[in-house]
């Protein structure tokens, strides 16, 4: 109970009642949002009640500086007759989401699964102490590892001495015979050890070992005895000593992790020529703005550059981007030349790059085939997209989209989408964003690990 709880509930309720995302993208008021907060109107979040029709009800106002004349137009102020001063009347509530949530929601809504790639190394950090080296401060000595190595060495040289000695008791067997037999059974014993043992036995028994004949033959011995496994003996007798050696020492040190930032640069390109009227511009905004939010939400860092063009291209700020209308003709390649120039600041090895262009498909002469397509091919990018905004369907002489599609439509990294009305917007967004998702190369690791210093791993 309490405010935190009630606010949390409001968020939940608001989430449920906010405008559907696709509806919002294609019809809603995008202008309320800024790049950090996507604001989606919440449907009738205030509880309904029986109310008068505002138009039928009319109202009372107070003139400032004199009595107004009947018939004079007035602007009824929202919240007239109700509420405290300063209280907002009739304003929409907004459900606010950050771009990350927006991206998640859009993924869900459109079934996208774009996985951003980490590109630029932004830092190397010390990870866990999982890497080892042969030298290091005593404090970082990996005692477990040291002991294990010693133990391994111990086990590798350990053998059942009683068993091997029995070999010398075989009738007529000399040191060489016993050595061959023991080695034949995989016992890691040296000939020198057997020779020592034979000398000791000869002394004890007062006769050479060849004369000892407890066993008729090695076969008879094998039938009776097996070497006792090391593990059992250790368990029985305990581990008397483990041979520690310098070479077994391993010192821990931290793993080095290269963090790669999932960074993206998006170049939005728009035709601002005379034929790009208000409706077309709005369609461009409806496609580009949600994609910008989406990529902002998907990537750790996103930079946006905005290019408009008619016959010439120039760079603008976001605020101006969707509104500009210039007079000139159209030469789309001018924009791509500028894009290539801009992208030099963002090496492809370090940046994910998206180039989104939009226009009504009109282009000068053979500019598309002769200049634009080669430029598109030469500019490395995760995705090149062209959005044709042509309310009422394609015009016959507007061929840019068709030509791009014909030349590059099969490429993994080129998408062409056509938008004739707001209802097409989400399809276009899907078309564009899913192209990269499907076609992007599979290496989508977020971090890359590079070892250093350790050997023998």
């Amino acid at each position, binding site marked *: 109970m309490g405010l935190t709880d009630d606010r*949390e509930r409001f968020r939940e309720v608001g989430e449920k009642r906010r405008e559907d995302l696709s509806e919002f993208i294609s019809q809603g008021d995008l202008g309320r949002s800024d790049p950090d907060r996507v604001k989606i109107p919440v449907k009738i979040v205030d509880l309904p009640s029986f109310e008068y029709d505002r138009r039928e009800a009319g109202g*009372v106002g107070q003139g400032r500086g004199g009595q107004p004349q009947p018939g004079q137009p007035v602007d009824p102020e929202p919240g007239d007759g109700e509420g405290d001063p300063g209280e907002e009347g009739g304003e929409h509530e907004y459900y606010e989401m950050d771009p990350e949530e927006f991206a998640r929601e859009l993924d869900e809504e459109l079934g996208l699964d774009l996985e951003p790639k980490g590109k630029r190394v932004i830092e190397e950090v010390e990870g866990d102490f999982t890497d080892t080296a042969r030298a290091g401060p005593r404090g970082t000595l990996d005692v477990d590892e040291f002991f294990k190595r010693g133990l391994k060495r111990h086990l590798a040289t350990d053998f059942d001495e009683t068993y091997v000695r029995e070999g010398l008791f075989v009738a007529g067997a000399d040191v060489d015979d016993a050595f061959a037999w023991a080695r034949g059974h995989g016992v890691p014993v040296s000939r020198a050890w057997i020779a020592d043992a034979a000398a000791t036995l000869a002394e004890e028994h007062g006769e050479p070992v060849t004369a000892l004949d407890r066993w008729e033959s090695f076969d008879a011995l094998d039938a009776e005895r097996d070497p006792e496994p090391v593990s059992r003996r250790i368990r029985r007798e305990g581990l008397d000593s483990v041979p520690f050696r310098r070479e077994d020492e391993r010192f821990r040190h931290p793993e080095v992790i290269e963090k790669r930032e999932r960074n993206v640069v998006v170049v939005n390109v728009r035709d601002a020529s005379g034929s790009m009227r208000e409706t077309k511009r709005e369609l461009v905004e409806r496609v580009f703005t949600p994609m910008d939010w989406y990529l902002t939400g998907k990537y750790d860092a996103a930079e946006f550059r905005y290019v408009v063009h008619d016959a010439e291209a120039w760079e603008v700020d976001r605020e101006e981007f969707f509104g500009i209308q210039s007079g000139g003709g159209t030469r789309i390649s001018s924009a791509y030349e500028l894009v290539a120039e801009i992208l030099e600041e963002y090496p492809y090895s370090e940046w994910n790059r998206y180039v989104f262009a939009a226009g009504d498909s009109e282009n000068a002469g053979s500019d598309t085939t002769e200049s634009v397509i080669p430029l598109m091919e030469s500019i490395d990018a995760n995705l090149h997209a062209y959005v044709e905004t042509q309310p009422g369907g394609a015009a016959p002489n507007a061929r840019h989209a068709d030509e791009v599609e014909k030349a590059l439509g099969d490429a993994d990294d080129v998408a062409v989408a056509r938008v004739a009305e707001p209802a097409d917007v989400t399809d276009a967004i899907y078309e564009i964003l899913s192209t990269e998702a499907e076609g992007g190369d599979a290496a989508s690791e977020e971090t890359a690990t590079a070892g250093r210093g350790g050997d023998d791993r």
Partner: protein
Amino acid sequence: MRDERVEAKREAKTLDEPAAEARELAERLGLEPYPVRYWVVDHDEMNELIAYGGFQRRYPHWRWGMNYERQAKVDRHGLGKAFEIVNNDDPSHAFLQESNSTADQKAVITHVEAHADFFANNRWFGLYADRGEGGPNAAARLERNADRIAAIADRPDVDRDEVERLIDAVSALEDAIDQHSPVDAARSVETPGVAEDVSDADADPLAAIEAQIDELDLSEEVRRDVFDDEWLEARGDGVEPEEPRPDVLAFLRDHGKRYDPESGKAVDREPWETTVVDAVREEAYYFAGQKSTKVMNEGWATYWESVMMGGEGFAGPDEFLTYADHMARVLGSPGLNPYKLGFELWTHVELRAARRDVIDRLLRVEGVTPENFHSWIDLDAVAEALEPHPAIAGAGPATLDELADLAADGDPRVDAETVDRALSARTDEGAIDLDAGPDVERYPWKLLTREGLAERHYVLSRPEHRGALRNVSRETLAERARYMFDVDRYATVEEALAEVDRTAGWDRMLEVRESHNDVTFVDAFLTDEFVREGNYFTYEYSRTAEEHRVASVDADDVRRKLLLTFTNFGKPTVVVLDGNFRNRGELLLGHRYNGVALDEESAKETLKRVFELWGRPVNLATIRVEYSEKAVRRAKRRGREPEGEEVGVRFQYDGGEVTEHDLDPAIRERIEADEVDYDTKPDDWLA
């Protein structure tokens, strides 16, 4: 609540003195406020309090969260700082914003004292808030509801979403209560699940039958099959109100059920559900008092704040500028502002009462008639004569001797005791030793009684009202004179003026604050003069011009339009017409059509909430105005407004879609009011 916070505590400490002095001043002015506890809160706590309607604890609901977010946004963008919030309770609790300047705090305290007086003395507040022996106990009640509902929501067998849905549904209907018999409001259900008025078996045949069925201990299935709703309703005529019932919420509480999607039938509510419905309904009544006196209450507080702050210099000279700024901001808010409308209406009440007192006396001067009033009487001389006595107007250390002389003559305007104490504490240099006597330098009003203060603040001697006597019309004078006897009581004007009652305005205000609500207040005191001087006007939507236009500046029109804004909280009146509509246990609500149609979108949404509380199909009868395309076109051509056709319509909702049906003429007759007309459009307004 937050007194452990050092900052807040320190601030609160500095307010102890102003608070005590403001209380003394308020009482000296004739107010009788509830005791007020002052708290200083930071802006976040303030936003929280505002979100919760002025209380610290309310039942759990998302709406408070929404209010908070909204308020925080307003606060953040500096769109409207809340200076204070005060709740209607005995004692009242006032929460002051920590960041207020000292001047603001003082102003707010005077404002709050006046609110507390209104809470304590307005009859409508008393009715709604059930001001019984123990006082309104508002905080305690709301807290109890908070606990009960929170406990319900926490129960493992109760889905919290369901609780909130229920609260949503009841809240959507919070204005569909009977504001005219608020006493009924307080009658809430003490035992959860059993409404008082149905638990008495004799009083409600349906409940009695149900009780008997319960005793049979049948399984739910058998019970549903054999004794279904129709069977029950056929026998229980208690469900059908003979008279339309304005308290829709009470009706739903007592007779509503819950739709069970699994069986597809209406089932009885769980006891907890009735508890929730009842608690939220009870709170709706509590807040109804506040809603139905908003203009009066805010105007009242603003009026006394201006007397105490401006008139009595409660703000120090350095603080006065900030105060004036604060005042300008509150009164200068755009649109129809309840503070401003209320303030102006109260001043108007005062002015009229004072003026009437003077006129009545002047008309009794020998030789004065309504006809010769303006020529016979030297109104400048009258204005001169009505100026306050210099020692009263300038009361303070400098006029102590004069005041002492007046006191010696037993002048009722002077507080003889304070004057005496101040005199004894006066040092040789003429200053007052503050340890020994009252601080009459800072609080000169301590030297005066209510009568003295009334003279100091006499409305007819305020510069802006000096012309009030001159402006009085001959008709008004004639009307006053008509019923007047004892006409030649005074030989001279001077003699008449000597008897003028300077407290007449304030006395009248105190009466009015006791008995009125916004509707009656506006109805009674919104005069031609008021509308003219305030430049008030009505506006209407023109279908031809497709915009709002000024419609009328006529006082009657403005009054009617304002009444529409205040009657039933400015909401259309919806009543229960039938609890067994079409003999199928359906609910029929009727919108009392007064010429203003419903907003259909919100009406349909609200109807869906009603369904949640009724459990069976629900209907709403209303009348809408339809404009044919032809009529609109023709009207446009002629530059006139199109004639609409009023068409009866019944909306029905049964859990699926809201459907629309023709309205039975007999029902239409029941919802149609023929006398009321809120349309203020003149015929030729588009010319």
